[in-house]
């Protein structure tokens, strides 16, 4: 089977949907974070696929892959920061359940 752009896009869409589901449905802050990671990686897959199958010149297409590298770096930094916050919340409140982190309201 020949690998087509549509496969990348389907994979990307699937990963993104799972990520959204995770963000909306999971109660644990860690799981929410992992879901966000999934969404980010869905974007990465999409970018790589488009970069590979584009009709543009090679030196333009390579930007898609460069962007992916940036996203991976940023995602690492983001998850580090986010996990640190979750850790602090857990230490302070004895739980990382997002249901209970609802003081920021009316």
């Amino acid at each position, binding site marked *: 089977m020949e690998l087509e752009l549509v496969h990348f896009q389907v994979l990307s869409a699937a990963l993104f949907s799972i990520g*959204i589901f995770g963000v909306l449905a999971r109660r644990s802050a860690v799981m*929410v974070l992992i879901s966000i990671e999934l969404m980010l990686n869905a974007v990465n897959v999409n970018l790589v696929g488009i970069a590979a199958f584009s009709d543009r010149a090679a030196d333009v297409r390579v930007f898609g892959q460069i962007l992916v590298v940036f996203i991976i770096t940023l995602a690492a930094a983001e998850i580090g920061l986010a996990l640190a916050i979750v850790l602090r919340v857990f230490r302070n409140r004895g739980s990382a359940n*997002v249901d209970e982190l609802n003081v920021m*309201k*009316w």
Partner: protein
Amino acid sequence: MGTDAAFLAPVIPAIAFALILITGRRVPGIAPYLSIAAIVASFVVWIVVFLAFLDDGPGTRSIEWFTIGTFEFTWGTTVDEISLVMLGVVSFVAIGIQIYSLDYLHDEPRLWWYFAVQSLFAAAMMTLVLADNLLLLYLGWELVGLGSYLLIGFWWERRSAAEAAKKAFITTRIGDVAMLIGIILLFRATGTFEISGITELAHGGAVDESQLKWALILIFAGAAGKSAQIPLHVWLPDAMEGPTPVSALIHAATMVVAGVYLMVRLFPIYNMIPEALDLIAVIGLLTAVVAGAIALSMTDLKRILAYSTISHLGFMMLAIGAGAPGVAMFHLLAHAFAKAALFLAAGSISHGSGQTDIREMGGLWRRMPFTTVTFWIGALSLAGLPLLSGFFSKDEILLAVHTGRLNDAFLVVTFVAVAFSVLYTGRMLYRVFLGRLLPHNEGAHEPGIRMWAPIGVFAALAAVIGVLAFEWGHEYMGFVSWVEDAEEGFHINTAISGGSIAIVVIGLYLTWLIYMQRRISASDIQRRLGFLATAAERKFYFDEVYQWGIKQVVLPMARLTAFIDRAWVNDIGVDGPGKTTRWGGGILRYIQTGMVYNYALGMVIGAVVLAVIWWSI
């Protein structure tokens, strides 16, 4: 130096005012001396400027004030015959008044404040007098109003004084608003505030006649307010609530003649519009007659003098309406000194005997001979006793009415007004000074030198200033010609002079019969006059009518306005949006659940909606 130095005359008292304000509370003792030193300096400036004027003639000087767009506003002074006469009167009378006040108000705790306002008033009055443009004049005009307000209300703990101050301020303000509109109309028509410029343009026919007419009538309304002409005269009698020296300076000699001065200053323009002059003449004459009649029935000495002032201001306006501004200035001069002497003498009476009601006086000449003589000189001068200055000025007015542009019916009514002034003078003189000394006045005494010296000087001037009316040679053809730059010298009409002398003699004899001999009963006359006498006693119901108007018209309108302000502007216009926002926020805040996945869901829904919109376009 020369006439350019004139600007110093208002500037020095203004500096004194600032200094007294700064030092007043800490060293109140120096306030009177600062104030008097400043006003004496102003008088010296007047002498210097006057001598320079005799050499060089009239002069104007102006400097830039500020510029808006291409239009330049200026400060400027005009030195000519009219402003010099006024400046001299203001600074000279103010010196006497301030010295008099030293004794009259010596135990006042707020004396420093009194002198601060005196300085402010002097500065404002001289600004008004010297101003070469209407804007600066208006500035001085409003500031003298402020000075008057503050000094009438000097004893503001007394409710009547506070009320009188408010009444004076508001009544004159009604005229002032009209005047400001008139000034703006003139500015719109001519593009300048400068009086000489406006005069030139108006004479050149650059101004539409009906526009000019309305502007002049509106400006006259301001003058009528300041100079207490009917129907805006009601504030002046109440202004007597202030200290007597204030009444003498502001409400007799200087500020109230500002309206007359303004009319004289703008006379070249008024002269183009006969209707405006007719209006001035009618209002002036009406004021002279009505105020004279009221003065006949008042019993408070200061109020008699106040109505007498109103009546004489009416004479001045009448002279202007007759087309004789020089005559108005001459009467202004004669009246200023005589009235200053009268008020100061009246102050000396209340100071020495504690009385203000003429029914409580009588025989005071036994205890206060000096005050009596000065008071008689001032009063008889104003009544027009021959050889005193008032005789000449009153004669000139009658002559101007006779020979001027007015109908001879005016002359007849003017004689009636003159007769009133003789009658109330006689009544006042006999009841206060002659007859039996009442027991409670046994202790009446003459005042100290700082009080009688000013009275004496003013009375002497009131007696002799009339010589200015005569022709002194080719350089000086009499006061009126000097002011008006006319060629005609002083002259006298035997019929008119004879008539006015006859009125004086008959009037004084009649009042002698009524109040001294008691051959004619005053109450009998009152009964025969019936309604007229009552009406005069009630001041022709002006106050009642105004009170009714305020109660029935002004206050309901104020309440309506207040209601609109509260209900619409405030409750709906201002509070409305606030309340709506608050209410909306109160409902919408329940969206904020604090649950992170709710927000995430919101984001997702938003993204989906955006995507749908994107694709459907």
